C-alpha cells in the first residue's frame, strides 16, 4: 500500500498549481475559523475576568444576574443567612460597581471598583508593587496592571486621583490574571470605602463569596441559598452562566457562528472545487490504473490519502498562521482578546475533516464509477 500512496503523493504535489490552490483554500478556511472562534473564546474569557481574578469557590447572586458587571445588590441579611448554612466555612461580601475617576491630567476615565471584605480582604489580587495592608490606609486603592492600565496614565504607588470628589491614592499595583472585556481599568479597595465613595442603592452587597467546608457541601449550600430566593453557583458555573449570556442573549455567539460557517463554506468551496477538478483531470488515468489491475479500494485509498494529506497540511498551516497573527496582534494591541483554546482547534479540525471527507467523497464517487472500458472506447 505504501507504494500506491507514494504515487498518490507524487500525483498530488507535482501538480503544483492545484496543490497550492487546495492548500490555500484549506489554510485560509482554517485561519478564518481559528481567528473567529479564538476571538470569541477570548471575549468569553474576558467577560468572566472578575470571577477568575477573585478566585472564590462559590458565588451567591441574584438569579437575574447574567454577567459580573450587571450585579443586583442584595440585602445584608442574605450574607448572615448564608454564613449560618451548615457547610459554609466563611462568606464575605463583595462590591462591584462602576465609577468615574478624574486623573491628574484632568481627564475623566471610567473604572470598575471592586470592594473587598474589610476584615479578610478575600479575593485580593497579587501585588507587583506596594503592600496589601496599605489598602486600609486613608483613600487607599490598588490599581490592576492589565491591558487598560495605561488609561489611568500608568500610575505609580503614591499617585493620586479623584473619585466622586473623594481623593484616591494608589497604594499598590496588582497583577491581573485576565483582563476585562469592556476596556475599563480596575481598582481594588475595601468594601466599606467602595460603598462610601460610590453612590449606591439601598442594598450594597453585589455578591457574597462563599468558601464551602468541602465539595460535598456545595449541593446543600445551593439548595439553602435557593430557599432564600437567591442563587449559589460554583466559579465554573458562574463563568458558564456569563458565557451563555454572551453566547445566546447578545447576538455575539450567532454572529461568530455565522462567520465560522462562512469560513467553512469558503474552504469547502475552494478545496472541494479544486479537488474535483484534480480528480476529473486524472479520471482517465485512474481508469487506466483500474484496467491495469488496480482494485477500487486502492484507488479510494489514493484519493483519501490525497485529501487527508492536503487537509492536515492545510490545518497545520492555518493554525500556525492564526497563531502568528494573534501573537503579533497582541504585541501591538494589548486589548486584543483572541485566545486559541483546545476547543477552537478541535472545531477547526472537525471542520477540516468534513471538508476533506466531502472533497474525497466527490472524487471517490467519480473514480468508482469510471469503467476501464471507457478508456478503451476513448
Amino acid at each position: 500500500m505504501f507504494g500506491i500512496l507514494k504515487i498518490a503523493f507524487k500525483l498530488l504535489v507535482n501538480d503544483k498549481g492545484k496543490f497550492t490552490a487546495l492548500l490555500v483554500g484549506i489554510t485560509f478556511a482554517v485561519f478564518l475559523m481559528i481567528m473567529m472562534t479564538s476571538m470569541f473564546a477570548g471575549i468569553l474569557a474576558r467577560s468572566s475576568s472578575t470571577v477568575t481574578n477573585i478566585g472564590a469557590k462559590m458565588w451567591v447572586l441574584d438569579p437575574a444576574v447574567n454577567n459580573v458587571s450587571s450585579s443586583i445588590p442584595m440585602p445584608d441579611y442574605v450574607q448572615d443567612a448564608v454564613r449560618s448554612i451548615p457547610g459554609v466555612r466563611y462568606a464575605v461580601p463583595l462590591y462591584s460597581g462602576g465609577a468615574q475617576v478624574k486623573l491628574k491630567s484632568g481627564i475623566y476615565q471610567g473604572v470598575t471598583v471592586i470592594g473587598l471584605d474589610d476584615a479578610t480582604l478575600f479575593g485580593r489580587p497579587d501585588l507587583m508593587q506596594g503592600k496589601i495592608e496599605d489598602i486600609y490606609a486613608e483613600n487607599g486603592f490598588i490599581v490592576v496592571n492589565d491591558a487598560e492600565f495605561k488609561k489611568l496614565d500608568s500610575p505609580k504607588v503614591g499617585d493620586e486621583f479623584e473619585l466622586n470628589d473623594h481623593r484616591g491614592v494608589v497604594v499598590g499595583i496588582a497583577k491581573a490574571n485576565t483582563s476585562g472585556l469592556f476596556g475599563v481599568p480596575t481598582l481594588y479597595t475595601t468594601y466599606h470605602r467602595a460603598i462610601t465613595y460610590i453612590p449606591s442603592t439601598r442594598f450594597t452587597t453585589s455578591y457574597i463569596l462563599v468558601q464551602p467546608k468541602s465539595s460535598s457541601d456545595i449541593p446543600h449550600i445551593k439548595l439553602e441559598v435557593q430557599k432564600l430566593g437567591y442563587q449559589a453557583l460554583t466559579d465554573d458555573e458562574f463563568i458558564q452562566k456569563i458565557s451563555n449570556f454572551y453566547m445566546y442573549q447578545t447576538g455575539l455567539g450567532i454572529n461568530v457562528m455565522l462567520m465560522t460557517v462562512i469560513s467553512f463554506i469558503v474552504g469547502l468551496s475552494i478545496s472541494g472545487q479544486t479537488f474535483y477538478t484534480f480528480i476529473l483531470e486524472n479520471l482517465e488515468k485512474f481508469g487506466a490504473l483500474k484496467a491495469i489491475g488496480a482494485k477500487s479500494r486502492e484507488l479510494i485509498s489514493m484519493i483519501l490519502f490525497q485529501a487527508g494529506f492536503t487537509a492536515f497540511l492545510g490545518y497545520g498551516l492555518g493554525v500556525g498562521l492564526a497563531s502568528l497573527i494573534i501573537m503579533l496582534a497582541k504585541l501591538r494591541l494589548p486589548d486584543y482578546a483572541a485566545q486559541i483554546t483546545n476547543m477552537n482547534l478541535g472545531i477547526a479540525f472537525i471542520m477540516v475533516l468534513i471538508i476533506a471527507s466531502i472533497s474525497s467523497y466527490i472524487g471517490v464517487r467519480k473514480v468508482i464509477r469510471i469503467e476501464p472500458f471507457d478508456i478503451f472506447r476513448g
Partner: protein
Amino acid sequence: MKKLAVEATGLAKWFGEGEAKTIAVNEVSFTANLGEILYIVGPSGSGKTTLLSMISGILKPNAGQVLLEGKDIWRMSSDELADFRLNKIGFVFQDYHLFSRLTTVENVAIPLILKKCDWDESMRIALEYLDIVGLKDRAYLPPVKLSGGEQQRVAIARAIASRPDILIFDEPTASLDGDTGRKIVEFVKQHILNENRCIIIVTHDSRIFEYADRIIHMEDGKIVEGD
C-alpha cells in the same frame, strides 16, 4: 504446436434494450496462441475494441466465455479479475495514458507497485524495461517531454513490466506517423514477442498488417475472415 494463450467461445455483447439494443459483438469465437502476433482488424464500429475488452477482463460479455489456462475469467470475483489483469495482461492504450506528473520510470513501475513490489526494487526493474525499449536515458523526464513514439515505447515498457502472458495493443499506430508506427510494431515483434507471450493488436492501419502472424477481420460484430 503452439500453446493456447486464450480461447474465446460464443462471445456476445450488446448495449441497450428493446429498440435501442445494439449488438456490438455477436457470437464470436476465436483462439490466440503464445508466441504469435494476432491482429483484430476491421472498420470503426465493427466490435474490435469491445471484443478486446471482453477477452482482457474489462467488459463482461452477455454470453460466451473466455478461457485462460482452462479457467473462465468471467467466473472470477472482481478482485480476482483485477489480479488477473495485473498478472496476465499488459495493456498499451491508444492514448498511452501515462501520468504526466510522474517521471517516465515511475510510470513504467506502476504495475510493479500495484503488485506490492518494494518502491526501490520497482524503480530498478522499471529502469531495466526502459533499457529494453531504449529509453533508459529518458527515465527521469516526465512523459510530456517525450515524442509520440517514445511515449508509445514507455507504454510498452509499462505493459511488459509485470511480465504478462498476453499483451494487448489498442490502435498502436493511431497517434503516430506511418514510419514511426511501423518501427514500433517491428520493435515489438523483434524484442517483445517471445514463445511465452501472445500479442493481440487491434488496428485498422493496413500499413502494419505485414507484421501479423494471423489476422482476424471483423464486421458488424462478427468475424468475417481469419479464424
